[in-house]
């Protein structure tokens, strides 16, 4: 996964959740970051805006970490023709 995409996803999480960016890594779980299900839908909303994609509900249910989120976004961006 490109560093650029990783950085953008982490930036979106940091901004929406008001968490310092340095504290977020691809290995961070939502639990470690103190994020609940409502925080998660907020992040998904912001990611859809950032990458101009639509994230299907079924792709979101198993996501528990930043790394999974980066991976999922990568696939959706690639499927949409890489436009971002």
């Amino acid at each position, binding site marked *: 996964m490109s560093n650029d995409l990783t950085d953008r996803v982490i930036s979106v999480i940091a901004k929406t*959740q*008001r968490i310092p960016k340095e504290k977020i890594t691809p290995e961070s779980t939502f639990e470690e970051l103190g994020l609940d299900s*409502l925080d998660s*839908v*907020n992040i*998904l*909303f912001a990611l*859809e*805006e950032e990458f101009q994609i*639509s994230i299907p509900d079924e792709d979101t249910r198993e996501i528990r970490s930043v790394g999974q989120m980066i991976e999922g976004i990568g696939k959706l961006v690639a499927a949409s023709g890489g436009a971002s």
Partner: protein
Amino acid sequence: MGLRRVVVTGLGVISALGRDRAAFWDALREGRSGIGPIEAVDCSQLRFRNGAEVRGYNPDDYLDPKESGFLDRFAQFSLIAAREAVADAGIEWTPELRESAAVVTGSCVGGQCTQDQGFVDLYLERRPRVHPLTIPRTMANAGASRISLEYGLHGPVYTISTACSSSNHAIGQAFWLVRQGISDLAITGGSEAPFSMGLLKAWEALRVVSPDTCRPFCRDRRGMILGEGAAMLVLETLEAALARGARIYAEVAGFGMSSDAHHITQPSVEGPARAMRMALADGGIAPEAVGYINAHGTGTPANDPTETRAIREVFGKHAERLAVSSTKSMHGHALGAAGGLEAAATVLALHHGVLPPTANFTEPDPECDLDYVPNAARPAQAEYALSNSFAFGGLNAVVAFRRWNGA
């Protein structure tokens, strides 16, 4: 268990008259109106320009930024008023108190600004999605639920939506919950934040909003002025308040409600009169013991003479000796929060022995022939006072309060 006596021991208010209870009372006592040019919405495409907005409000002064993102403006107001009321009452929460404590609030339009923004995003901006918190921010019970979370309250928590009577229905039911022994304490009142373009356009279309100001009961009145804000009361049993040495503002003495079943917007004389009579009967109050009525007094052509006739019908000759004022002339018509703001005004009037005036008063309408306390507050100690709310849909709710004189 017999009926328990219920008293008001805490008040919190955020309104166009200022962002706390003290500012609210100062303005009422001075007859100072909070009505001015609307700032939240560009009014260039509206037939009216003025409203009664909460000015200088910054959510960050009250809530951390992430928290305020979860709450629509109306629910933020609920929480801010509840915090002030609970601190004012000096409540010390125990597990037993939390177990039964109630939160009963009124709101007419709930998270209107959030919903309006969603429609702008969808239909105007053509965006493919709306904010993910649109549902929890918009729900009318958002304020009540957030208050229950604040203090960990597990008793009856709900929100009543009966247009302009919402808060009075809420206060009346909270009163009955405590009186009946279902809850030992209740936080009750209402909140509203109606300044969105969509809702202002809807009010414009109904042609009841004044192009200048709100002049209840005057010959040249031109309609209502929309307001916003919240007011919350802490109700508890007289016994508990005395046992902990709490300051008592007033006693909640009675509650009455009725439906006109007459017309969806036109007021009637008989429905409001019945609600006032029922509030008196509920509290065993002689009509002659009532000294003040905080009127519904919207300043519309239809309401004011109808309410005047209803008061005359209930009080007969005593109507001549009653002081009646509409504080909507100062804090505006806050719809579902109106009864909350007016209950706070009524309770403070009894507590301080000062009757707030009807501001912006010019000359009386011959059809409105009571004592409306024009423009200047009046030192006067009423024994009992009524707070009237009459809603579109023909729903009337009246709360009676009694001055606390130590017994």
